[in-house]
C-alpha cells in the first residue's frame, strides 16, 4: 500500500497493549470510527478485543487478499501485535446522491423515486416494496481490476430456475477489467452483442424493476450504476411504461399503440418521402403532389440527399442539446428548430414539408420509454432512407423484411425476442399492444416461464 495517501494508520493503546489501526479515510466517516472503534477500545477495562468490538470479525493471519479487499471496501483493520490477532470492522460510510425523481423515465402518476449509484440503497428500494423472504439476492464480484459488486435479484418461488442459472453462468463467464455502468455489463451478458437492439430491459425505476420481479424476471444490478437490467424481455415490452398500469386501461392501450406504431411511422415516414418522390410520384394524389413539388421546386438536391442532410442536422441538434449546459440548451432549441429550419427552407436547401416530416419522425423516435430502443430506431432509420434512395419502395420493404428477420432471430436470455407476437401467446396479448383491464390479466407473461402461472387465484371467494 505505497503511494496510497488516503490510507490512515494510527496506533493506540488498549489495556496497555499496542493496537495498529488502518483505514481508508475516503471510504469511512472518521466520527463514526471514533464512536464504534476508538471509544470502545479505550473503555475496554481488560476485556477481550472481540468482546469489546462485538461487530468485528477475525481475519486469518496469512490471508492478505481478504484483508486488502476488506480495507478497500471501507473496513477498518485492527492489528493486535501482542496477541497476533487481526480484526476488521465494517465502517463503510460515504456521501451519496439522494433518491430523486427519474429523469429519463419520468411519469406523471405513480411512485417517483429512482435508483441511485449505491447498490445497498437500490436493494433497499426493492426490499421495501417486496417484503417476502422469497426475494433472493446473489452477489458476485466481477471486473479483474475494479472488483465491481453485482447483484442478481429474483423471487425464487416465481422466477424460472433455468433462467436464473443462465444469468449466473453468464456473469461467471464475464472477464473484463472493470465496469463503469450497468449498460456496459449488459452488453456483455446479452445474447447477440452485435445487434443494434437492446435485448435486456434497462430501467432506473424501482417500480419497473418490482413489476418485473413479480412477473418472474431476473433483475441484475451493479454497484455504482443507477440502472437495473431486466431479463428476459421482449421487443414489445420496450414500448411499455410503468405508467400504463397507473392509467386507466383504455388510455394506456391508446398510448401503447401510439408508441408502437410510432416506431413504424418514424422509420417509414422520411424514407417514404424519398422513395415516393424519387421513384413513384404517381402514388400521390394530384393535390398532394402539387404541394410537394412546389415546396421542392427550388431544392437542388435529389430527395435522398435532402433527407439525409436534414436528418443529420436534427441528430446534431439532439446531440448538442444533451451536451449543452441547461441555460444555453433552450437557445439551441430555438436556433435549431426555428432559425435553421426556416432559413434552410427559405434558402432553398430543403422543402418545408420535409422539415415537418423530419420533426415528426424525430419526435416519434423519442416516444419509446426505453432510451436504448429509441437510439436503435434512430440508427435503423438511416438504413431505410438509404434503401429507399437506392431501390424505392421495394428497397424500403426489403429493409423491413430484413429488420423483421433480424428481430425474429433475436433472443433475450434464450427466449424469443418477438414474443408474444411471433411465436404467439394469446394470453400475453392482453398485456402487449393493448393493456387490458386488470381483471383480464390473469397470467404471468409466458416469456418469463414463471413457476407460478397465475397472478391471482381463480377461486370465487
Amino acid at each position, binding site marked *: 500500500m505505497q503511494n496510497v495517501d488516503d490510507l490512515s494508520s494510527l496506533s493506540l493503546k488498549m489495556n496497555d497493549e499496542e493496537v495498529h489501526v488502518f483505514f481508508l479515510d475516503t471510504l469511512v466517516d472518521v466520527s463514526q470510527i471514533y464512536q464504534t472503534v476508538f471509544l470502545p477500545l479505550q473503555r475496554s477495562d481488560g476485556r477481550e478485543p472481540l468482546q469489546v468490538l462485538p461487530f468485528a470479525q477475525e481475519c486469518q493471519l496469512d490471508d492478505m487478499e481478504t484483508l486488502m479487499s476488506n480495507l478497500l471496501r471501507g473496513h477498518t483493520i485492527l492489528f493486535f501485535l501482542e496477541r497476533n490477532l487481526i480484526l476488521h470492522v465494517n465502517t463503510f460510510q460515504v456521501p451519496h446522491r439522494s433518491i430523486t425523481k427519474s429523469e429519463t423515465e419520468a411519469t406523471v402518476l405513480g411512485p417517483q423515486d429512482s435508483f441511485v449509484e449505491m447498490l445497498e440503497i437500490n436493494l433497499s428500494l426493492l426490499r421495501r416494496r417486496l417484503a417476502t423472504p422469497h426475494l433472493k439476492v446473489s452477489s458476485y464480484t466481477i471486473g479483474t481490476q475494479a472488483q465491481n459488486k453485482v447483484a442478481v435479484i429474483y423471487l425464487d418461488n416465481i422466477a424460472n430456475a433455468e433462467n436464473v442459472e443462465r444469468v449466473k453462468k453468464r456473469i461467471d463467464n464475464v472477464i473484463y477489467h472493470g465496469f463503469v455502468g450497468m449498460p456496459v455489463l449488459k452488453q456483455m451478458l446479452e445474447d447477440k452483442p452485435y445487434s443494434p437492439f437492446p435485448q435486456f430491459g434497462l430501467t432506473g425505476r424501482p417500480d419497473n424493476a418490482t413489476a418485473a420481479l413479480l412477473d418472474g424476471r431476473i433483475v441484475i444490478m451493479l454497484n455504482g450504476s443507477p440502472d437495473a437490467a431486466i431479463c428476459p424481455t421482449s421487443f414489445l415490452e420496450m414500448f411499455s411504461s410503468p405508467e400504463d398500469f397507473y392509467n386507466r386501461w383504455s388510455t394506456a392501450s391508446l398510448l401503447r399503440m401510439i408508441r408502437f406504431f410510432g416506431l413504424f411511422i418514424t422509420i417509414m415516414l422520411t424514407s417514404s418521402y424519398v422513395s415516393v418522390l424519387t421513384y413513384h410520384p404517381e402514388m400521390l394524389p394530384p393535390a398532394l403532389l402539387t404541394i410537394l413539388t412546389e415546396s421542392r421546386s427550388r431544392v437542388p438536391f435529389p430527395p435522398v440527399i435532402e433527407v439525409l442532410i436534414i436528418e443529420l442536422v436534427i441528430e446534431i441538434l439532439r446531440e448538442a442539446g444533451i451536451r449543452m449546459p441547461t441555460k444555453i440548451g433552450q437557445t439551441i432549441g430555438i436556433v435549431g428548430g426555428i432559425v435553421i429550419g426556416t432559413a434552410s427552407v427559405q434558402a432553398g436547401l430543403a422543402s418545408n414539408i420535409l422539415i415537418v416530416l423530419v420533426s415528426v419522425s424525430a419526435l416519434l423516435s423519442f416516444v419509446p420509454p426505453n432510451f436504448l430502443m429509441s437510439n436503435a430506431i434512430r440508427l435503423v432509420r438511416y438504413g431505410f432512407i438509404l434503401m429507399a434512395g437506392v431501390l424505392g419502395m421495394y428497397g424500403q420493404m426489403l429493409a423491413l423484411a*430484413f429488420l423483421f428477420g433480424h428481430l425474429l432471430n433475436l433472443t433475450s436470455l434464450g427466449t424469443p425476442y418477438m414474443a408474444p407476437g411471433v411465436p404467439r401467446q394469446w394470453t400475453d396479448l392482453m398485456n402487449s399492444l393493448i393493456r387490458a383491464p386488470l381483471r383480464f390479466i390473469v397470467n404471468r407473461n409466458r416469456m418469463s416461464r414463471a413457476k407460478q402461472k397465475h397472478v391471482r387465484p381463480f377461486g370465487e371467494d
Partner: protein
Amino acid sequence: MDRGRIHSLNPILVIGLIMNTMVGVNLLGLAHHASKMGYNLWWSPILLGCIVSLTLIPMMALCRRYPEDNLFRIHEKLLGKWLGRCFNILIIVYAILNVSTAHEGYVRLVQTSMLSNQTVTLPLLGLTLVMVYITNGGIKLIARFCLLTFFFTGWMIFLLQYGFQKGGMTHIFPLFHTDWRSIAETVHNSYASMLGYELVLFFYPYIQDKNKAHKHVLIGVWIVVLLYVMILLTSVSYFSEWQMDNLIYPILNLFKAVELSFLERIENLGIGLWVFLILSTSTGYLWVARTGLEEMAEKTRLWHLLVPTIISFLFIVGPLSVERQRYIYDKVTVYMAYGLILWPIFLLVLHSLRFGRGERVS
C-alpha cells in the same frame, strides 16, 4: 450438424410455413395462368386443393414411417448411399431452381413496374442477401418469418372489396361451362401456384405434434385455397375474359381498382409488400438446398448456404438468356415438382418391400 433433434415447429408455425411457402410469385399471375377455363377459373383452386390433399397422403405416410428423418436421409436409408445421393443432388437442383423461379419472376416485375431505369442486378442482390440472412437462422426463423408475413400481407385481402364492388358477380354463371381438356390445361398451368407444400418432406422432423401434422398441413393448404378462390372470384367479377387471357399480372390490375383519397397506384405498395411472400417462399427452398448439402457433407458449414445462393443468383443474372430461363422455370421446375410430389409413392412401395408395411424406421 442440425439433425432436427430439437422439435421447434408448433402447429401454428407449421400452418404458417405451409401457407407462405405456397403463396409466392405465382399468385401474381394466377388468374392469367388459369385463364383457359374462362370465367369458370374461380373454382380451379378447389380442384388443385383436392389434388394437393391427395398427393399429401403418400407424403405424410412416408414421413410417419421416418419421423426423425428428412427426405435426404430417407433416400440414403432406402436407396443406399450412392443412389440416394444422386437423387439428393436432383432435389438440391430442384430447390435451387425454385429459389431462382421465385426471385426471377418477382425481380423482373419490380424492375418493369417500379424501378424501370435500373437493371435487375441490384434489386436481386438485395433480395438474395436478405434471403441468406433469414435462411441462416434455420427452419425456426423461416417459420416465424412466414407467420409474420401472414400478418403483414394478409390484410391485403380486404383490398379485394374494391375490385369486387366494381365488378359483376353474375360473371360466374354458368357455373360449369367448360370441358375436361381446358380443366386439365388449367390445372397444369396453375399447379405451380400450389407448390411449396412438398417442403413438408424436409421439415417434418422438426414438427412438434407429429400425430396431427397431416391435419395442420391440410389446414394450411385449404386456407391458401380459400384465399385463391377469393382472389379469383374478384378477378372473375372485375375482369373480362380477354383481360384475364392477356394480362400477365392480373393482381396488379386488381390493385388499381383500389381508390383511396390519400394514396393512388397502391400496386406499388402491393408489389413492395410482396417481397415478404417471395422471401417466405425462397428461404424455404434455400433451406432445403442447404440441408441437402449438409446431409451430403455430414457437417455444417456456411458455404453450404452460400453455394446454392450464388448458383441461384448467377442463374438469373448469368449468361443464360431470358427465354431459356423462362423455359426452365415454367417447364423444367414444374415437371421436377411433379416428380418430387409423386416420388413418395415409389418410396412407400420400396419401403414396404424392404421393411414391411407401416414399419417405423428412425
